């Protein structure tokens, strides 16, 4: 992944607000990266743009040699469906679907065979084999995040983006979720995590510090 001179600004009543300014870095396949910074530093916006969920004002993102913003919304959706998994701080599960149906959804969107069996396998793998037919509202925070992780990883994407994946979890559940994430990375999945927790960032090989929309420093290799 190559993030090339990325800037994002928005207009509001007080004028132009620069959220990201000339962010430029790259990440080799199978690497893990943590983007850290204080609240409002622009790290979540950066992650959203990298996933194609938001658009930059300037610059672009290259994923597997493809310019994400040279394509239309449908094509970006197709890239997300096949190559990108996204985990949100607030889980963002669909409340009218069971855990199993939530995990099946990306498989169906990607047009992959046997979605039910594959989704079931993935939920068993994250320890939720007994919770397949439960709706999100009856699951604990940790269980919901594990469903979200299963949903993000079930299509075996090349890239997993996680926005504060442990932000809403207690310390015990944080350890559980990080264990799953580390396992995924060890199995060859490129992982980018936005966090403000030092312990979570230390689990990755590379750390980018962001402050006021600018890269302050980059630690690690790759």
């Amino acid at each position, binding site marked *: 992944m190559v993030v090339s001179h990325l800037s994002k600004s928005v207009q509001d009543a007080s004028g132009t607000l620069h959220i990201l300014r000339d962010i430029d870095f790259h990440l080799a396949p199978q690497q893990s990266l943590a983007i850290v910074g204080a609240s409002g530093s622009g790290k979540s916006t950066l992650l959203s743009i990298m996933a194609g969920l938001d658009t930059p004002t300037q610059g672009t993102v290259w994923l597997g040699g493809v310019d994400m913003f040279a394509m239309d919304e449908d094509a970006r959706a197709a890239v*997300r469906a096949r190559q990108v998994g996204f985990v*949100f701080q607030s889980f*963002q*599960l669909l409340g*009218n679907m069971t855990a199993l*149906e939530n995990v099946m959804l990306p498989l169906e969107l990607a047009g992959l065979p046997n979605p039910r069996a594959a989704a079931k396998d993935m939920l068993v793998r994250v320890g939720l084999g007994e919770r397949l037919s439960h709706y999100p509202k009856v699951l604990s925070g940790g269980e919901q995040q594990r469903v979200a992780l299963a*949903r993000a990883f079930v299509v075996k994407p090349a890239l997993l983006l996680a926005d504060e994946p442990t932000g809403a979890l207690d310390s015990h559940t944080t350890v559980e979720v990080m264990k799953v994430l580390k396992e995924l990375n060890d199995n060859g999945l490129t992982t980018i995590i936005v966090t403000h927790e030092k312990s979570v960032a230390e689990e990755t090989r590379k750390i980018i510090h962001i402050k006021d929309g600018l890269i302050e420093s980059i630690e690690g290799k790759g």
Partner: protein
Amino acid sequence: MNVLQEILAGLKHNLLRTILTGLSVSWGIFILIVLLGAGNGLKNGVTSNFSERATNTVQMWPGQTSMPYKGLKSGRNLQFSEKQVAAVHDNLTESSGETGIIEKQSTITYKNEYGSYNLVGANPQYEKIFNLKFLENDGRFINKLDLDASKKVIILDKKITEVLFKKESALGKYVQVGDIMFKVIGVNSTKERWGNGNAYIPFTTAQLIYNPDRKFHSIAMTVNGLETNEANEAFNEKLKGSIAQSLSYDPKDTQALHLWNAQRDYVETMKIFGGITIFVSIIGIFTLIAGIVGVSNIMLVSVKERTREIGIRKAIGAPPASILRSIIIESILITAVFGYIGMVFGIGLTEMVNFFLEQSAAGNPEGMSVFKNPTVSLSYVLVSTSILILSGVVAGYMPARRAVRIKPIEAMREE
């Protein structure tokens, strides 16, 4: 899950919202059908009543003058003769079949049964003017041969035969009118609201027996081409003028002639029903608009509520077109299913009312009803339901298109 399963699961999950949306559709269609049905029922009832009697009949009776005229004093009793029939025939091009009528209250007897009935001395054209109805095996009306030979034949209204003959057939039997025997040659089945019923004998026979001075009680005719109130008023005035001249009385004398113009009543009534139909149609259109607004509103809220869900779906790779398609299918599903339910209930109610009306009509064949067959044409119903479905689709499409255009990250922030 396929698209349909997913939509159904979503609808089930939001059962209350689904039912409320659906009810506004069902209610709109139901009320529309019931309103149109009520309008049709009234119209059919009145039209049917009119069809039972001749709508283009004009009949007039002579009265007593109340004004002196050209040296003639007031208070003269006027009487019609062939001269007035000829005057009408010659002066009024709109009339046809003019005929004199003799009427007399008479006792008619068959075996031990008898009753007092209105005896009418009529010409053959009377049948057409007053729309008499002869069912199969019920004989016929007076013809020219009866007239020429002044035959002693009689036609009875059905309600008279029911009294005198009970269940026995009246045709070919003899009844006694006063002291004279008449052979029954026909039974008239026209529904009559008033009186005990009429008995008809040839005009010439009536003149011979009851009216040797060749005067008669009324003149009746059929009028043609009088489609408006103004045309009928003009005809009435012309008719009054013609009779006034023929009988030498002041045309302004309102007591000298009594006139009944059924055609004018028909035009008036149809005008009122034209107004009622427009009124019902306007209410129907507004009901439909209310239904459309209801569906649009709920679809708007429904899509707004789902903005976050749309964002999540886009984030995990759903193309905007597929989301749009799924919302539109959902709109069609809700409006079509609930529209159908409303349609079934609406048609069911109108058919049920129709069934009971027909049942009661069958039990009382002589009865008149102002409400008949309150059903609505299926094409009206299908068009209205289609309009509502289409508006549901448009109502779903507009906000859905806006929602799928929002960046996923912004959509997911919506609560």
